[in-house]
C-alpha cells in the first residue's frame, strides 16, 4: 500500500535527515532528495486528478482520535507549485552557494522546510497544523539568517518572534475549538461549528495569528527586511511559498471550517485590509532602493490582492461563478508563487554579479545578463497581471465577479494596484536599456539562470494559457 500523502512529507524529511548525517555529500544528496520529493508530489497530484480527493488515516486510527492527511484539488495544486518552485530553488542553490559552510547549513534546513510545507498543505488536523507551522517558521527563520550579516540575523530574529506570536494566537484558537467541540479534525469541526462566541473567538485568534504570518497589512512590517536580507534562494522560497502557506491555511479555515461564521462584514474587513496592503505594498515597492526590498514589498501587495477575493467569494452563491472565482484565486496564488520565486532568484544573480542590488545603479549588470533581465521582466509581467500571465486570467475573473456581485468599489483598487505594479516593475526594467556594450550571449551561467528563467516563464506564459486543468483538478465543471 503506497501512501502518497505520507510519502510527500516523509521523503523530504528523510532527505533532511540524510544530509544532516552525511554533510560531506550534501549537494548530491540534496538534489536527489529534491527530485524524489517532486516525484512523490507528482504522485499525489496524479491521484487527486483521478480520484478528486485523498485522505489517509495515519496509524490507522482515523479521525477524531488519530491524525489524517488529506489532499484535494486546492492543496494538490499548491503542493505541485511548491514542488516545482522548490526544485528550481534547489538547482539554483546548488550553483549559488559556493561549496562550504553555508551549503552544509542550507540543505538540511531547506529540506526540512519543504517537508513542513508539504505537511502543512496536507494536514487535516488543527493541532498538527500548529506543529507544521512551527517547523515552517523555525526553518524559515534559520534559513533567513544564513547570510550571517547583522541585518539578516536581526530581521530573521524578528521574523521568528513574530511567527511565534502568530503560532501562539493560532494555538489558543485551537484550544478553544477543542474545548467547545472536542475534536481537532478539520472536516469534523467544519460539520460541528456553530455561530457562537467561542467559535467566533477562535476564528478571530487564528485569523490574526495567520495574518501575522502571511504578512497581511498592517502586520507586514517584519516581512520586507527578512525577505530582502536572506540569501536569494531562501528569499525566493520565503516569499513564494512560506507566506502563501499561511494564506492557504487562512483560506481553508474561512472556507471549510468556519464557513457558517463568516459574515459579509468580516469578509469585507479582510478585503479592506487587502486593499490597503495593495496600496501600501505597491507604493513602498515603488520607493524601494534595493531590488530585493522591492520584491519583498511586492509580496505584501500580492497577499493583499489575494485577500480581495474573500469578500467577493463570500458574496457569491454556490455555483459556477463562485467556482470560477475560487480557481481564479488559486491561479493568482500559483502565478505569484512562480513569479516571485523567479524574481528573487534573478535578483540574487544581479546582486552577486554587481556586488549590490541598488536599482539606480543596475544598468551595466542588466545589460550583461540578458537571461536574468528577461526573468525579471517575465516575472514582472506576471506580478502586474499582464497577459498572457496566469494573474491576468485571475484578475479578469476577479473583476468580472466583482462587477457581478455589485461590489464595484474593488475595481479602482485592482486598477491602482496594477498600475503601481507596472511602475515598480518597469522602474527596474528601464535600467536594462542603456549605453553599455552588447551582451556576450543570452545565458551565461546555466545552472542559476535557467531555473529563474523557467519559473518566470511559467508564471508569465504557461499558467495563463494552460489554466483549464485547474478546474478539473478542483473537480469543477468547465474543466477538460
Amino acid at each position: 500500500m503506497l501512501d502518497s500523502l505520507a510519502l510527500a512529507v516523509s521523503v523530504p524529511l528523510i532527505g533532511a535527515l540524510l544530509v544532516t548525517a552525511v554533510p560531506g555529500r550534501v549537494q548530491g544528496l540534496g538534489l536527489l532528495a529534491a527530485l524524489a520529493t517532486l516525484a512523490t508530489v507528482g504522485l499525489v497530484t496524479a491521484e487527486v486528478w483521478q480520484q478528486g480527493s485523498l485522505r489517509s488515516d495515519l496509524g490507522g486510527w482515523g479521525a477524531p482520535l488519530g491524525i489524517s492527511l488529506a489532499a484535494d484539488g486546492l492543496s494538490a495544486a499548491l503542493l505541485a507549485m511548491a514542488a516545482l518552485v522548490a526544485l528550481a530553488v534547489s538547482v539554483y542553490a546548488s550553483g549559488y552557494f559556493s561549496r562550504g559552510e553555508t551549503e552544509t547549513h542550507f540543505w538540511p534546513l531547506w529540506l526540512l522546510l519543504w517537508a513542513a510545507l508539504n505537511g502543512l498543505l496536507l494536514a487535516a488536523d488543527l493541532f498538527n497544523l500548529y506543529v507544521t507551522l512551527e517547523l515552517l517558521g523555525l526553518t524559515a527563520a534559520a534559513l533567513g539568517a544564513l547570510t550571517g550579516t547583522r541585518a539578516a540575523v536581526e530581521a530573521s530574529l524578528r521574523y521568528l518572534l513574530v511567527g511565534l506570536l502568530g503560532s501562539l494566537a493560532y494555538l489558543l484558537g485551537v484550544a478553544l475549538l477543542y474545548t467547545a467541540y472536542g475534536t481537532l479534525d478539520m472536516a469534523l469541526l467544519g460539520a460541528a461549528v456553530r455561530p457562537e462566541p467561542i467559535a467566533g473567538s477562535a476564528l478571530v485568534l487564528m485569523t490574526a495569528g495567520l495574518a501575522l504570518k502571511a504578512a497581511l497589512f498592517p502586520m507586514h512590517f517584519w516581512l520586507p527586511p527578512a525577505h530582502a536580507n536572506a540569501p536569494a534562494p531562501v528569499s525566493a522560497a520565503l516569499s513564494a511559498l512560506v507566506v502563501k502557506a499561511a494564506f492557504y491555511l487562512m483560506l481553508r479555515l474561512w472556507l471549510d471550517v468556519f464557513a457558517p461564521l463568516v459574515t459579509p462584514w468580516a469578509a469585507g474587513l479582510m478585503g479592506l485590509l487587502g486593499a490597503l496592503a495593495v496600496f501600501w505594498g505597491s507604493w513602498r515597492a515603488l520607493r524601494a532602493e534595493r531590488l530585493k526590498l522591492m520584491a519583498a514589498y511586492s509580496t505584501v501587495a500580492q497577499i493583499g490582492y489575494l485577500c480581495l477575493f474573500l469578500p467577493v467569494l463570500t458574496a457569491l452563491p454556490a455555483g459556477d461563478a463562485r467556482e470560477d472565482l475560487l480557481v481564479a484565486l488559486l491561479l493568482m496564488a500559483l502565478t505569484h508563487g512562480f513569479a516571485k520565486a523567479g524574481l528573487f532568484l534573478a535578483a540574487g544573480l544581479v546582486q552577486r554579479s554587481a556586488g549590490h542590488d541598488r536599482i539606480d545603479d543596475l544598468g551595466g549588470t542588466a545589460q550583461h545578463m540578458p537571461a536574468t533581465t528577461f526573468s525579471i521582466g517575465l516575472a514582472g509581467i506576471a506580478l502586474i497581471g499582464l497577459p498572457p500571465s496566469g494573474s491576468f486570467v485571475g484578475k479578469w475573473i476577479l473583476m468580472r465577479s466583482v462587477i457581478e456581485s455589485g461590489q464595484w468599489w474593488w475595481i479602482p483598487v485592482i486598477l491602482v494596484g496594477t498600475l503601481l505594479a507596472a511602475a515598480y516593475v518597469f522602474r527596474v526594467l528601464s535600467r536594462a536599456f542603456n549605453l553599455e556594450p552588447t551582451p556576450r550571449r543570452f545565458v551565461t551561467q546555466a545552472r542559476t539562470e535557467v531555473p529563474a528563467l523557467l519559473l518566470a516563464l511559467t508564471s508569465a506564459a504557461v499558467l495563463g494559457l494552460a489554466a483549464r486543468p485547474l478546474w478539473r483538478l478542483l473537480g469543477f465543471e468547465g474543466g477538460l
Partner: protein
Amino acid sequence: MNLDQLLPAVIVLSSFLPGVFIFLLKEESHLLRGVLNMTGAIVKVLLVGVMIWGVFHGHVYETRLTLAPGLDLVLHADALAVLFATLSSVLWLVTTIYAIGYLEHSPNRSRFFGFFSLCVSATVGVALAGNLLTFVVFYEVLTLATYPLVAHRGTPDATRGGKIYLAYTMGGGALLLVGAVWLQALSGPSDFVHGGFLSGLHPDVWGQLVAIFFFLLAGLGVKAALVPLHGWLPQSMVAPAPVSALLHAVAVVKAGAFGIVRVVYDVYGVGFADALGLLTPLGILATITILYGSGMALTQDGLKKRLAYSTVSQVSYIALGASILGPIATIGGVVHLVHQGIMKITLFFCAGNYAETLGVHKVSQMDGVGRRMPWTTLAFSVGALGMIGIPPIAGFVSKWYLAMGAVEADAYWVLLILALSSLLNAGYFLPILYRAWFRPPPKRWPEEHIPAGRFETMGALLWPPLITAAFCLVAGLFAAAPFSPLEWATLIARREYGP
C-alpha cells in the same frame, strides 16, 4: 484540428518563433539572424496571402483556445482582420529589410530584432483577435513588445520616451481592461460579429453600455493617439527610424484605430452605437484630434516630430469614418487604415534615410536634399502629396470616400473639416518639398555617414521607401481593381450594413 483551424495561430507564430530564437542567438550571428528575420517575414506574407484567398472563397479560419470557462482566446479571420493582417505583414517585411540596413553596426541587435518580431506577432494577433478578450491580450502584449524598442537606444531621452510611452499605454490598457470585463459581465462571452452583439440587451443596461464605450474608447484612444491621449507619440520619436515606422504605420497607432473600428462595428454595431448617441462624441473627438495634430505639425522643425503630429491627425480620419453612420464613410475610414499606413511608413523611411545618410534631422536642414538624394526625396514627395490628398495617390481615395460618406449622412460639417485639414496638411508638407527640391544644397551636410556611390545611400535603406511609395501610387491608381484595399473595405462595409 484541421489546417483551417490552425492557420491563424500559425500566422501569429510565424514571427513569434523566429523572435524567440533571435533572442537566444549570439550577438555576432548577424547572418543567421538576418535569415531568421527574413524567413519569418516572408512566410508570414505567404500565409496571409493564403488566408486572403481563402476568406475570399468563404473559408472560415478560426483558432480557439479556452483559457477558462467563458474566456476563449479566439483568432478569427474575417475581412477586416485580413485587411489589417495583410497591411502589417507586408509592411513588416519591408521594414525588416530596412531595419537590417539601418541598424548595421549598432549594438544589441539580438534584443532589437527579437522584440521587433514579437511586436509584429502581437499586431497580427490584434488583427485576428476574434473577441475582446483576445484583443486585450494582444493589445497588451503589443505594449510590452514595443516598449523595449522605444527605449532601445538607452540614452536618457530614450529612457524618458519609454517611460512616457509606458505611462500612457499602461493606463490606457487598464481602462480598456475594465471596459472589456464590464462588457463581459453584462453580455456574457461574445465574439465579434458584424453589426455587434449588444443591441439585444435590456434597455436598463444601456446607460452602462455608454459608460463602457467610453472606457473602451479611452483605452483604445491612447494607442490611436486621440487628443488628449496623444502625448506619448511625439515623445517616442527618440526610437530608431524603423521603430517609428512600425509604431506609426504598422503596429501601435494602427492597433488603436483598428480597435475603435472593431468596437464600433463589431461590438456595438454602428447602428446601435448611433442609437446610444455614441457616434457624435467620437466624431467630435476625431475632429479635434485631426485639427490639433495638423496645427501642431505646422510648428515642428524636427522632421520626425512633424511626421508624428501628422500621424496624430491622420489616424483620426479612421475614427472619423467610424463615427459617420453610412457605408460609404465606413469604406473611407477602413481604407484609410491601409492608406495611412503605406503613406506614413514611406515618410518615416525617408526621414530615416536623411538622418542616416546625411545627418539631417530637421526641416530647416533639408535645403536641396532632393539633389543629393533624388530617389528618397521622390518617395517622400509621393507620401507627402498623398497625405495632402492629391490624386491619384492613395490618400485621395480615402478623403474622397469620407467626403462622400459625409454627404450621404448629411454631415456637411465633415466636408469643412476635411478641407481645413487638407489645407493644414499642405501647410506643413509643401514647404518641405519646396526646400528639398528647389533650394540649393548646403556646402556640407550636418553629418555625412554614407557617401554617395552607385546609389545615393545603402540599398537596404533605399528600396523599402521606393516600394512603399509605389504601393501608394498603385493603391490610388488601381483602387477599383479586385483585391485592392478599397475593394476590400467595400466588402467589409457591405457585410456590416448587411442586405
